[in-house]
């Protein structure tokens, strides 16, 4: 099969997954009574009587139709951008889609930094360990990845706060990293805040990522503080995926170093460095690629915990607060977004996989 057709087939396969995901979210919503679904659309301050508003909301959501028809109304509403409204105390009040747009960039920032850091560490370390199976460094790596696998993410976050956090243990020389919030609030003049920062929501414009926005607007102290606030959450997230990556890279390396082509290369007199890099590692990475999607899923699950520990306003904390504040549309919207991220990740991973290993396309 040509690569083009593989991609087209894989893209078409997204449709049933998407419909299933939306069905799950729809069932989550429909497990609540109609009155609660309508309640988010009622505004008592408007001049329109509440009974009329209820009728309008019901018509808009298609709630008078049978449940299967409502499903299609829901898909329509999703594509129109009507994801309902959420009311979270001390966090965010307004349309769900807007809230996701505000807080999603922070989460993506955490995830991307953690992914880059863990790949940068795992590739050379995994190559080193995988080319020396059963050595001392291999055993050390095994214990390291075992601990990372078994480490409760929230507890690791708290440990890092205690060990490296600023002002937690008095007189700690390495305690320089701030432990909460995406940036230092006291760097902003609250009486006369700059136009690009919304102080009540705690977000900035245009990218909603404080690090980049501060750089764009030339506020370097704020950018530096945003960078410092990133360190501990990113380290916590990195440890979890690093352990998984290391484990799989090592297993793949050991597996492919027993293959015939490696023996051939050795007998030809290819230098050991080239064998490890070109023959062993290139093939050993294939099984790792298949689990990248799963690792990313666990990363996203971990984001909820890390954002709670570090009070880092992002999508995970939005999802958690929706559950704690009983916001139906909030839970539905955040669940859907997490599912969509994972769907796109799996798509990208599959395509990369096919690019990397042509045998997969058949």
């Amino acid at each position, binding site marked *: 099969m040509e690569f083009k057709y593989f991609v087209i087939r894989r893209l078409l396969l997204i449709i049933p*997954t998407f419909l299933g995901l939306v069905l799950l979210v729809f069932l989550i919503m429909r497990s609540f009574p109609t009155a609660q679904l309508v309640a988010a659309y009622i505004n008592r301050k408007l001049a329109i009587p509440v009974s009329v508003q209820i009728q309008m909301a019901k018509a808009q959501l298609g709630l008078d139709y049978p449940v299967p028809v409502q499903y299609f109304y829901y898909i329509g509403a999703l594509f129109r951008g009507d994801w309902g409204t959420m009311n979270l105390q001390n966090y965010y009040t307004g349309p769900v889609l807007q809230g996701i747009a505000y807080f999603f960039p922070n989460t993506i920032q955490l995830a991307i930094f953690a992914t880059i850091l863990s790949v940068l560490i795992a590739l050379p370390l995994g190559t080193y360990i995988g080319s020396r199976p059963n050595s001392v460094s291999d055993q050390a790596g095994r214990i390291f990845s075992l601990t990372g696998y*078994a480490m409760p993410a929230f507890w690791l976050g708290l440990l890092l706060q205690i060990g490296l956090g600023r002002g937690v243990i008095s007189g700690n020389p390495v305690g320089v990293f701030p432990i909460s919030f995406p940036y230092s609030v006291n760097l902003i003049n609250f009486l006369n805040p700059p136009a690009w920062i919304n102080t009540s929501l705690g977000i900035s414009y245009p990218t909603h990522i404080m690090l980049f926005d501060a750089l764009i607007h030339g506020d370097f102290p704020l950018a530096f503080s945003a960078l410092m606030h990133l360190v501990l959450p990113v380290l916590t997230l990195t440890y979890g995926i690093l352990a998984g990556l290391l484990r799989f890279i090592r297993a793949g390396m050991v597996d492919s170093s027993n293959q015939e082509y490696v023996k051939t290369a050795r007998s030809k007199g290819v230098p050991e460095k080239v064998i490890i890099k070109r023959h062993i590692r290139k093939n050993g990475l294939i099984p790792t690629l298949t689990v990248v999607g799963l690792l990313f899923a666990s990363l996203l699950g971990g984001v909820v915990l890390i954002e709670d520990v570090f009070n880092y306003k992002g999508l995970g904390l939005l999802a958690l607060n929706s*559950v704690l504040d009983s916001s139906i549309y909030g839970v539905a919207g955040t*669940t859907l977004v997490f*599912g969509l991220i994972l769907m796109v990740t799996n798509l990208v991973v599959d395509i990369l996989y096919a690019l990397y290993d042509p045998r997969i396309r058949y």
Partner: protein
Amino acid sequence: MAEIQVTKQFQREVKRRPKVEDFKNTAKLFFKNKFAFAGFVITVIYFLLALLDEVYPSYLGVSSYSSLLSFQVSYSSVLPLPPTFDKGWWYYMGTTQLGSYKFALFPSVLGALKFDMGYSLIIVLAGAAIGVILGTFSATYGKYLDEVLMRVTDVFFSLPYLIIALAFIFILGRYLIYVVYALIIVWWPIYARLARGQSLYVKSTKFVEAAYAAGSSRIRTVFSHILPNVLSPVFIQLSLDIGSIVQIFAALDYLGVSVSPYIDELGNIISLGQTYLSVGVWWPIVLPGIFLLIFTVSVNMMGDGLRDVLDPRLRR
């Protein structure tokens, strides 16, 4: 006469030998692995402690928050008391604090361990039971059931488990028992996939064909020929999953999704200790977490060892 007797005895021996010998070999291989052995011993110690606390609670002291609450240590300090070896084993880990009530950390952590391990065992076993039965039947009966089951598991796998767990807790209600139900709902698809894959493989083997040829009914074949051969990988997965379930259970309680604060649970104890983090009180956070970490690490070591031994493809 004697000859016949010997033959009969020999036949009995032969009938008995493979299983016993196999088990002996497996156990020998398992205990040869130092990691696996250490993990096994620590896990057994944990379960024995939990059992002791359950059967004979007065021996370890108090095992529930509500009784701990009435136990006030001292008002000499506003903060939790640091670990000390002077006042007896109760205070080896210091105290933690809820409002103005101080209570000893060590006995409450022991109580919490029992609680955590019990619930995770229930979650894993229930998830495995549902998943294995559904997976095996869908593989054997095939067609529509199979297709539907695979699509359902697809949806579950397309979301991070913590997010689905949160969503189901939201639907069911924010109580501890619903956290357990939600985790069972999240966990069965893994076993369903595993059991389905394994039974598809077993279904194509000669001995299942022979069973059908000998007139075995479908349901009998499933229960006496396919299911026993599916169980070994499920068992490995199960032993690995106890570790992660304990973590997730503690994490969900740390997030505060179950409303009651009076739960003797490790995540809850850690989240309680977090109140005093900013003034440098580290022991109510670090020490309970170490107990949790040791448990998850040892369970993982045991599971890894089991996989090396039970998975015949890996045995060289």
